[in-house]
């Protein structure tokens, strides 16, 4: 390939500048600020700042509230990822069988993805709000003691469902594409080989879409970890009694509500490490796509 040559030495840097500037201002600057803040201790009014080394980190890691938030996050993320993927796969296999109106059906399926997280959260909040929610009314009429404002498990269930619901569309798209990439003759060959439709799915189709499933698992976990702030804030605001306070939400509460800037910064540094690790996993295992020829 011939090397592109710019007549002007300055031009390539000028062309790169906007992207570099955006990255610097919105990524590296905040990240470095977080790193810097995480080793400082500041009073709530910002009058005094003191260097404390790793004290913020050791305080966080020995704080039972932080560890329980970590547990909450794991439960929330895994439940959300699974709940977002299983129905998506089910819908995608069903969409394969649709003969007429395939495009229409798929378009409808994609819509929830366009809903902003906070709006999605509000939607579910209204439906299941104990005082005014239609579904909450129906649940109580059916004898279910529904009260996510007081019951932590129900609150968790509600945010998981709201967070997963939004992500189903995205997963659906990927599963549809993955299913379409399986040659029809493979499934037909399996049918002739005496495998019923359930067996065909688990022995032929599912192994062949495994790379996609793994990719989605990583993406959904990252989503549940970091992109669900809006939903949690709108639906439960981390409550009741911190039952839905995930790590990301705790960063916000500790930093901006409780004004413990150092502790909050230390938490975001830990989150940053988690993101980096997940991204590394994704690059290492997902980018190296599994090829079946």
């Amino acid at each position, binding site marked *: 390939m011939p090397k592109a040559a710019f007549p002007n030495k300055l031009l390539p840097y000028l062309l790169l500048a906007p992207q570099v500037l955006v990255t610097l201002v919105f990524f590296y600057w905040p990240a470095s600020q977080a790193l810097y803040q995480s080793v400082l201790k500041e009073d709530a009014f910002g009058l005094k700042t003191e260097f404390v080394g790793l004290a913020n980190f050791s305080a966080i890691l020995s704080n039972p509230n932080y560890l329980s938030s970590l547990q909450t996050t794991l439960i929330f993320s895994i439940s959300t990822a699974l709940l977002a993927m299983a129905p998506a796969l089910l819908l995608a296999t069903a969409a394969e069988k649709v003969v007429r109106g395939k495009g229409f059906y798929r378009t409808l399926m994609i819509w929830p993805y366009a809903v902003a997280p906070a709006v999605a959260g509000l939607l579910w909040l209204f439906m299941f709000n104990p005082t005014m929610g239609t579904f909450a009314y129906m649940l109580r009429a059916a004898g279910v003691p529904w009260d996510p404002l007081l019951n932590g498990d129900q609150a968790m269930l509600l945010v998981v469902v709201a967070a997963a619901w939004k992500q189903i569309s995205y997963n659906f798209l990927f599963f549809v594409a993955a299913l379409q990439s399986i*040659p029809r*003759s493979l499934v037909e060959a*399996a049918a*002739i*080989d005496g495998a019923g439709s359930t*067996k065909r799915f688990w022995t032929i189709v599912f*192994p062949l879409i495994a790379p996609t499933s793994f990719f989605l698992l990583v993406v959904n976990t990252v989503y549940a970890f970091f992109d669900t702030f809006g939903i949690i804030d709108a639906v439960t605001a981390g409550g009741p009694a911190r039952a839905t306070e995930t790590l990301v939400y705790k960063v916000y509460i500790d930093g901006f509500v409780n004004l413990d800037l150092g502790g909050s910064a230390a938490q975001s540094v830990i989150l940053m490490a988690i993101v980096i690790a997940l991204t590394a996993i994704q690059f290492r295992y997902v980018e190296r796509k599994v090829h079946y*020829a």
Partner: protein
Amino acid sequence: MAAIELSEVRKVYAGGVEAVKGVSLTIPDGAFCVLVGPSGCGKSTLLRMVAGLEGISGGTVRIGGRVVNDLEPASRDIAMVFQNYALYPHMTVRQNLEYGLKNRKTPKEEIARRVEEAARILEIGQYLDRRPGQLSGGQRQRVAMGRAIVREPAAFLFDEPLSNLDAKLRVTMRAEIRRLQRRLKTTSLYVTHDQLEAMTLADQLVVLNAGRIEQAGSPMAIYEKPASLFVATFIGSPAMNLVPLDGPGASPLATLAGPGRGRQVLGIRPEHMRLLDGGAGVRADEIVLDLVVSGVEVVGAESYVTGRLAHGGPELAVRVPGYSHLEPGAAVKAAAPLGAFHRFDAESGRRLELA
């Protein structure tokens, strides 16, 4: 003991397109039947209906005397070899062969025995632990065949199994499939668009066109007496020469017309004609035609000289042994035995027999 019998089989797709328009056909037990036709003639659809992968809109399909119209593909006791082989990419060759047997709860020792046997026959023993992705086209083809034969089914169905191979390998595998079928004596239905493959493989050749059987019979019977213009031009390479009797340049042939008064088309195969050196050596039962050479195709052992009937009529190909040095524009004389001509009705395309 499993003949395949089709009677008045139809396929109508949603939207009213009729892909198969009433096909009746009996493939005797152990016979190798080849369905041949141009793309879109319904041959693959017909095969898929026998396999159970496509619903049957009308008529009945019997395999071994049993009506299979409403049976699942798995219950029809057939095995199929697909054009793209359809090997399971995430399984090893051994697992590919075992899959169908395991689904049928075949005893372990029996599975091992059959896989062993198939691997021996097809010489794929050393690849058993590889995955399809690590095999060449020819090896994959063998595995696909292996997956069919381990099942020991009542019938093999082949859907253009050689069209993904290169020309040389195709010839080898063709011979191999034929040998294998002779050895196993399993009734086979084979679909192809390649007339050469059809001619060389078939016990029973079926030429399909636009969803209907144009002609069925032994390959040589079809070659020697094509029932229609379509068959005449489809079977044989280069194709049979055709001369419409009312067209330009046809006057020297007018005496060869068959019975009836309709417009007719004469046909003659390139190998039945010969070029004359000067004007000598014409036999009494031959007709001599004047041609202006328009092109020469040298194949190697033989050449095909194409020339126009002198008065601007249709092009005729003549097979010439060896290397022809004729140049385009040269005037030549070609002789053809009167008995080698075929006559067809120009309207219906059907063959006309001399009374």
